[in-house]
């Protein structure tokens, strides 16, 4: 009795699997393809939004997106565990060499642009700073808000951890003012917070705090500082328009890296990322598109 039941189960299983196999062959679409996508925490929301949209239009493709940091993503690409690495900084020379030693060949795509906003508590009367002032604040030369036109309060400096691409970018562009031989360091008492969220929570409740974060992550209830490139220059607030015309000083490119020229599904996905549809998502998340989409969205500011 028992054996008969198992036999029936088994055959029906065989039959059904035959059925499904033939239906896949009948289907014009290829079976599910997987794209592993990992890297920059700055880009993780963007990469997720792209992946979700692309998957809903292409049900045969599965894209998994994880964060961890630019370095983590590039390391994973070098080790061959992901197909696409997201990075908020350009790949380093030694990383390229390491990849080549592993038989790889990283190919670079600038998929979006990002501006870093300097943020303070809404109750802080300071609303504009020069790059030099921000550099002096973070390097410890300016320690009180009254030195930059604010109240008599100590300055609490907030930064991302040293392994964050945003941290390195901020160090090079703001603290060192983009000068290669400049060796300015963060003041030792700079608070290094492990997440964007930590910085936002602290700035929201602490009137002494100054922080920085990707424009895409700054909530509306915090005050964004207008930045001038030099003393006497024009103070510019970050927005899609000001990043596009390069008048805002603290903006950068966001990259995706693949191992070798992408082919097949991967190529289709990357091509789609440069389409107006995908770049529209970039704008919606507060980042800056690489190509100008319809004139309406390119002129709207950050919500």
């Amino acid at each position, binding site marked *: 009795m028992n054996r008969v039941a198992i036999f029936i189960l088994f055959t029906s299983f065989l039959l059904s699997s035959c059925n499904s196999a033939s239906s896949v062959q009948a289907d014009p679409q290829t079976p599910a393809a997987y794209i592993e996508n990992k890297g920059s925490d700055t880009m993780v929301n963007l990469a997720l939004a792209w992946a979700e949209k692309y998957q809903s239009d292409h049900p045969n493709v599965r894209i998994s997106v994880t964060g*961890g*940091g630019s*370095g*983590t993503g590039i*390391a994973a690409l070098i080790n061959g565990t992901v197909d696409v690495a997201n990075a908020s900084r350009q790949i380093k020379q030694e990383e390229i060499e390491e990849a080549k030693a592993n038989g790889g060949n990283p190919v670079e795509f600038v998929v979006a642009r990002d501006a870093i906003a300097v943020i303070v508590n809404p109750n802080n009367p300071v609303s504009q700073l020069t790059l030099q002032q921000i550099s002096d604040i973070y390097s410890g030369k300016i320690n009180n808000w009254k030195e930059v036109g604010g109240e008599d*309060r*100590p300055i*609490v400096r907030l930064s991302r*951890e*040293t*392994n964050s691409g945003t941290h*390195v970018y901020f160090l090079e562009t703001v603290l060192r003012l983009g000068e290669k031989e400049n*060796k300015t*360091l*963060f003041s*030792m*008492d*700079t*608070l*290094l*917070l*492990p997440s964007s969220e*930590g910085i936002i*929570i*602290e700035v929201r*409740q*602490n009137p*002494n*705090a100054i922080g920085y974060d990707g424009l895409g992550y700054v909530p509306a209830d915090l005050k964004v500082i207008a930045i001038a490139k030099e003393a006497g220059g024009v103070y510019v607030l970050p927005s899609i328009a000001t990043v596009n015309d390069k008048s805002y000083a603290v903006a950068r490119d966001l990259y995706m890296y693949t191992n070798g020229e992408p082919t097949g599904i991967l190529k289709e996905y990357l091509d789609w990322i440069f389409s107006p549809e995908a770049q529209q998502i970039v704008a919606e998340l507060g980042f800056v598109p690489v190509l100008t989409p319809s004139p309406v969205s390119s002129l709207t500011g950050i919500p």
Partner: protein
Amino acid sequence: MEKSLNWREFVITRLIKASGYSAILFVALIFIFLLREGLPALSDVKIAELFSVRWYPIEEYFGILPLLTGSLIVTLGAALIAVPFGIGTAVYISEIAPRWVREILKPLVELLGGLPSVVLGFLGILVLSPFLRVFLDLPTGLTAFTGSLLLGGIAVPTIVSVAEDALDSVPRAYREGAWALGATRWQTIWRVTLPAAKSGVLTAVMLGIGRAIGETMTVMMVTGNAPVLALKLGSLFSPVRTMTATIAAEMGEVANGSTHYHVLFFIGMVLFLISLGVNIAASSVVFRAKKRAERILS
């Protein structure tokens, strides 16, 4: 029949013995691994640099002193909070509380011990740190003290439940003897019950401190992680960076085999040696106390 029983007993004894010795084996293996990965740091970085005061690994500053003092000050603060509070709670539960209170309190304390540390960390940044900033008029609420308070909270359940067990196992005759001699309840607790349970209470304290010094997530979220040398008492109220938070924050992104990687393992080694030292100190105290007790009794 008898033969099979012998055989079974043989296997079971061996199994129990093996699991006992495996603890030693694992600790030894971990230590060897730490040595192998951590010691190269000494050849990569000069010792003077390793014990300097600037930690900024992406520019090759590998001074671990700020991290060491950061860990110590947070742990010290946590111990100052958790030890009296934990032992006090244990004494209350075991000696003073009526039966029904005890029946409610003990599971509640143990529930507190099961709270995930990331939850406590969120509580720390959202509630405790803003409160401390305003209440103590500090520049920021993300300080060593905030970490100490939360770590104290994490260590208390461990201390309470181990110390309470130790107090509970003191024979009732000891207390009755003290009462018969006319000792008050407080005198009985302070002079008789607590000393009798000394080794268990000390173990509780050690486990609690061990829990505090090894805690990572909460500390990383609330202490601000600024690598500043913490030498004065005032440092308790400024941001610090602990060794555990440093390893947790940086290990994920470090290149395998680089100087930074070896230095992080070196920090792990230092942490290991600290907890080893604390444990040896504690067990030698317990051991000495036992010997004295035996001498008096014999």
